């Protein structure tokens, strides 16, 4: 049984591409496309790793991550944050709220794969 990843992203074709490359690498991939109930989706699916977009409909990825870090069940869950903004202030904010890693759009598939595998080795 491979490790599981939950991709929280509102761009369906990004979800599809990330799902394809991670599935091919042995990951079980699920997706969620809005921010409002993202925390509930994480608790329901209990993924080994989360890929989390910052700008989501309904709620920002930063707020979602704050909730995760405040909950003992998810306070150490590996989270890779994706954002379309690459300013140093965004990176600082992502680190402050507890992102395990931070990646700026546009990124390449190999970068995502390398980042995810560096965070957890799939089984």
């Amino acid at each position, binding site marked *: 049984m491979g490790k599981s990843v939950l991709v929280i992203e509102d*761009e369906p*074709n*990004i979800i*599809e*591409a*990330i799902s*394809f*490359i991670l599935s*091919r690498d042995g990951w079980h991939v699920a997706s969620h496309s809005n921010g409002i109930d993202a925390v509930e989706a994480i608790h329901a699916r209990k993924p080994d790793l989360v890929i989390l977009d910052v*700008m989501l409909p309904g709620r920002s990825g930063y707020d979602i991550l704050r909730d995760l870090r405040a909950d003992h069940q998810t306070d150490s869950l590996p989270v890779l944050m994706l954002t*379309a*903004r690459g*300013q140093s202030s965004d990176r600082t904010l992502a680190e402050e709220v507890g992102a395990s890693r931070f990646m700026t*759009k*546009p*990124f*390449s*598939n*190999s970068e995502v794969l390398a980042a995810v595998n560096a965070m957890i080795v799939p089984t």
Partner: protein
Amino acid sequence: MPRTTLTGSRIRDRRMGLGMRQAELARRAGISASYLNLIEHNRRRIGGKVLLAIAEALEVEPAALSEGAEAALLATLRQAAADQVPATAELDRLEEFTGRFPGWADMIASQHQRIGALEEAVTALTDRLAHDPHLAASMHEVLSTVTAIHASAEILVDDPGIPPEWRARFHRNIAEDSARLAEGARRLVSELEEGASKETVLAAPQDEVESFFSARGYYFPELESAPEASAVSDLVDGAGSGLVSAAAKLLARRALEVYAQDARILPAATLAEALPEEESPDPSQLAARFGLDPGRMMRRLAALPADLLASRGQRPFGLVACDASGALTFRKPLSAFPLPRFGAACPLWPLFQSLSRPMMPLRQVIRLAGRTDGVFVTHAIAQPAGPQVPNRDPMFEAHMLIQPMPSATALKEMPRVGVTCRICPKPACRGRREPAIMAEDA
């Protein structure tokens, strides 16, 4: 043609105007002719007894020889030198340089001012890119679409053995995304062009409103005495290119409605008659006298036109207001007390202190940190804004009225505040958020 703004040049002009020889003036002033020659060519600093002696010999007031644009030019050049990091200019030879090369000195000063204006524009642009929600959303959409195309294309290129149904799906995704990208890019460009086509190019709505108020001296006679019901609308609609964006028009309308309400309760002419002569008024006392709240009184004082103030021997007032977050919501700067257009103000301002002591009027005489500290009397108060709702905490806003005290001496015991950290020379400041772009005071 020689400049006459420098002390040495003025002495020379005055001497030649009197038909006096250099040696004669030197003799009368008790200095050597060669020393006077250096002074007249602005190669030696002059002041004190020598200036008095020369002025007496030339039969003019010493100030007539030493004051004027020279001080402003030298101050600007000192500022330019201070902003240069690392500092390489020979400050000790500034006056000699200004005297020998007045044209170059003027050019450096004007370039320094131009750089300052451009830096403000860059700050505004950065501010817009970071905080304009429409622009941020468009950029996010473009970058997300590019990411989707990039990811799909990479899969197709890197994996020739991809199953046909997946291949078809990624081809379709790329086609859809590229159409979306074209549309998103077009929208982004049009938003940027829309911004650039405005007369105020990079201005935020609040800046448009401030320019609109500033152009009218912050005084609207149309709203002072029995205004027409449509007076506010007429002002906004008649602003033309003065108020471009819909947001600026809305903000201006709100500000003018507040002004009209203030004026209805206390017309400017009535207030002017009640002002003390020469001495700085206390807005809290005036507010109590007219039955107003102090914030409204501060707005009324700041709206008084120069001629009414002059009739009472009063100097113009500056005013700044902020909401409970500390964001500036109204700015009427003074030439000697500029207010930051972008970014945050000095946290040491009494304006912000008042937020932690609501309803307590604060009066402070402060020094504004600069080459020579200016002295100002400030009155600040934080008070509830808008209607009071039972069982709900009020929203607070704060006002700070500023009046210059040019004849006061800056004393160490007066709190020393700045405008904003980036241009503040105050060393080791407990309120400093970021380093200054200019040299801190030693």
